[in-house]
């Protein structure tokens, strides 16, 4: 990582963490993407002045033992904005972030339980007025207040972007795996609790939770005749076929095209 000495000295990073849920056992755990957000935060902080530049922040229950598995990555503390279960996390988080004014906020793409909407980075960005970079794989360098980040695209492709600090980024599964959580530091880390009040999440209270079902997948007919074709089908960037790019057409025409497609696909009947 290339870090400009001057910027990195004062670079403040916040990694937001949530409580994950193991896919087969359903137990609370370190969420995979949030773990990556902490890992990326740690590696940026370690390349700079040190771990003290990274704050790992959770809004929720400070007693949740899964928070310790983030601490086991070598954190001295995890900061928790104590909230009731039904509370909406966005406004207390906004308040905190506005007050502490970090340079980079890292989150997962979406949570492993609860709403899992992936809206938190966008809602925070809207309230703070910051740019969002979705699904990043790495932060390549930070120079003179501008960060060069790599955005993860399907099939291992990357897009290099530059973004001015401060910004919010959600961390994709393509980012470096979170380091091992060790029991010793996990059990010794400080959970810094701070109280906050928040309105109940009205939308969520109306929902009922069900175990997720796998989404039906469109059958993929591989027409390839040769090994080279199959290899290409498996690796190459899918070339849009049959689609239309409607950029300068009137809005009604664009909407009609979408409507027709939905009819054609059987989404609308």
């Amino acid at each position: 990582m290339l870090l400009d000495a001057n910027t990195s000295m004062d670079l403040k990073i916040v990694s937001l963490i949530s409580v994950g849920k193991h896919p087969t056992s359903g137990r609370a755990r370190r969420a995979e993407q949030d773990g990556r957000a902490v890992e990326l935060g740690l590696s940026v902080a370690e390349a700079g002045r040190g771990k003290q530049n990274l704050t790992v922040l959770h809004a929720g229950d400070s007693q949740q033992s899964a928070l310790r598995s983030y601490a086991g990555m070598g954190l001295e503390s995890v900061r928790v904005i104590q909230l009731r279960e039904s509370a909406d996390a966005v406004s207390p988080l906004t308040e905190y972030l506005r007050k502490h004014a970090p340079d980079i906020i890292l989150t997962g793409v979406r949570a492993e339980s609860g709403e899992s909407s992936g809206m938190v980075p966008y809602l925070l960005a809207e309230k703070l007025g910051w740019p969002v970079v979705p699904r990043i794989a790495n932060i390549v360098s930070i120079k003179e207040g501008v960060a060069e980040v790599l955005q993860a695209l399907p099939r291992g492709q990357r897009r290099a972007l530059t973004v001015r600090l401060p910004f919010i980024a959600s961390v994709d599964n393509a980012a470096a795996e979170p380091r091992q959580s060790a029991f010793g530091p996990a059990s010794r880390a400080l959970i810094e609790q701070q109280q906050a009040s928040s309105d109940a999440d009205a939308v969520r209270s109306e929902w009922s939770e069900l175990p997720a079902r796998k989404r039906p997948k469109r059958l993929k007919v591989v027409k390839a005749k040769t090994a080279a074709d199959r290899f290409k089908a498996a690796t190459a960037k899918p070339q849009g076929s049959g689609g239309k790019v409607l950029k300068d057409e009137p809005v009604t025409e664009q909407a009609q095209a979408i409507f027709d497609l939905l009819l054609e696909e059987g989404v609308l009947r």
Partner: protein
Amino acid sequence: MTFEWLHPFLIATALLLAAVGAVRRVNLWRAGQPESVDFVAGLMAMPGRYLHDLHDIVERDKYMSKTHAATGGGFVLSLLLVILVHLFGVQSQILAWALLASLALMFIGAVFVFKRRLNPPSRLSKGPWMRLPKSLLAFSSAFFILTLPMAGVLPEVAGGLLLTIVLSIFIAMGLSEMLLGMTWGGPMKHAFAGALHLAFHRRPERFGGGRSTGLKPVALDQRVLGVQKPEDFKWNQLLGFDACVQCGKCEAVCPAFAAGQPLNPKKLIQDMVVGMAGGSDARYAGSPYPGKEVGQANGGPLLTITEGLIDPDTLWSCTTCRACVEECPMMIEHVDAIVDMRRFLTMETGSTPNKGAQVLDNLIATDNPNGNAPASRTNWAADQNLPLLRDLKETDVVFWVSDGAFDMRSQRILRAFVSLLKAANVDFAVLGDEELDSGDVARRLGDDATFQSLAKRNIAALSQYKFKRIVTTDPHAYHCLRNEYADFADGLFDNIEVLHHTTYLNELVQAGKLKLSRFKGGKVTYHDPCYLGRYNGEYEAPRELLRSLGIEIAEMERSGFRSRCCGGGGGAPITDIPGERRIADMRMEDVQTTGAELIAVGCQQCTAMLEGVVEPRPQVKDIAEILAGVLLEDEAENNVESQLEEAF
């Protein structure tokens, strides 16, 4: 003789300096962590431990045991008499003759030591150890000549000044090796540290033919978990490291060393000594860790071991097969030390290599190493109609299924065992989804926190029910249940017998509860799983079972307590440290030299490792599978079947 004062002076000086050295050495050990030891009982038991336990191990090499008895015995006796005769000047022809006899004995022993050092095997350390036979010869011969006049054999003042000078040089050389070297770190250190190590051993249960193989639990509220610096070892572990004679018996049997992985148990213990005393390993004169140069390692009592003294890969190469411990004449506990250091790496630095972190995460989140859904634990037995303890509450035998439940190959072993249990009309039940991983892998990978959590929850599950025995097909679970759970079980295991399935099946067969036909097939050999054999001393039951089928076992050269590991223990397949060869391949070569067509095994891990060797190779079958294959079905059932066949 001239300079009559010289020799007593030399002896007194050597004794004094040795005493100073002893105090310094003791202080090195005292830097370790406290561990309560019964000092008086230990010291009282020490001679017996030396003469029986230690000597029994040395006796496996007759040449060396006789040599050592002559040299060591002769030396101890000689030293006592030398002090009496030459230091205190006790005038007694009887004592002088006795001294001559013991020196002669020592001399003869030293000649054999010398002979072996002419062309030493690679496992022996060279360097100062090559000097030792010469020093032994110098000591015994010089004092022999010096004692002759006192025995009245030679007249006083024969030889004169030249002889006195030569004798004095020999005596000085002998004394400095034998007395100074004992406490200042020469080869003879093994006598001083070794004697005390036997007295204050951390596992006194091992003496007198006992067995103590369960790892010691970590207190999870400590400042540092596991061993970071040499000082974090218990003081008697440090003492144990100092007892090493560098005979290299451990190196000769270590599967990781033979596979070219960067581990040599002897070097590891010597590195621990370097760490304890401070300095570098440049003076080490034995085989290196394969692929690593000697002289690069530096350590000190307060320095982190894995930063400069030992490469973590060395620690992760160990399969915890205990071959080194079993072979060590000084009864040093290599595996304890390795796991202690792994504990630091896993629980403090979070640096378990390769799949380690993933396996530990899975164990935490799903109670099994591969992250299978906990509720799918009994899926393998969907067609087995197994009674659940949850329903019965009480049974005779609990069948501990182990994680083999998730593995299709192991499931064949489980099914075979169930068919045998049913055929013998055993009153048994399984825990079903209440059973969790035994914690074996977590513990060997150094994650004692996860092990303890699993152990405690397993114990809680077991303690809800009434039963007499636990039987398992997995020697690793067997070891945990039998030897390691007691630390957390609050007496639960006092009235419960834990058995390996081969032991239990042998009981059933000997009691005539299973009707078996004779085995028809080719030559069979038996592979002793480490965790059944060396860890639990069960060598006989599997063999008796095979013999009861009419099998004449074609034994491998390395069988019984010398069995070579399959490479699957201690989390080694998970950490997967590269070497030049695979341990399982070497074991398969052992098998192939017997010409066997079938390897009988008593462990699903061994089965997996040995079946991982490329074909053509002998077949691998668990003993339960072999037995199930020759099981005679009930006659009544047979009749029904034949009637059915006729009907169609």
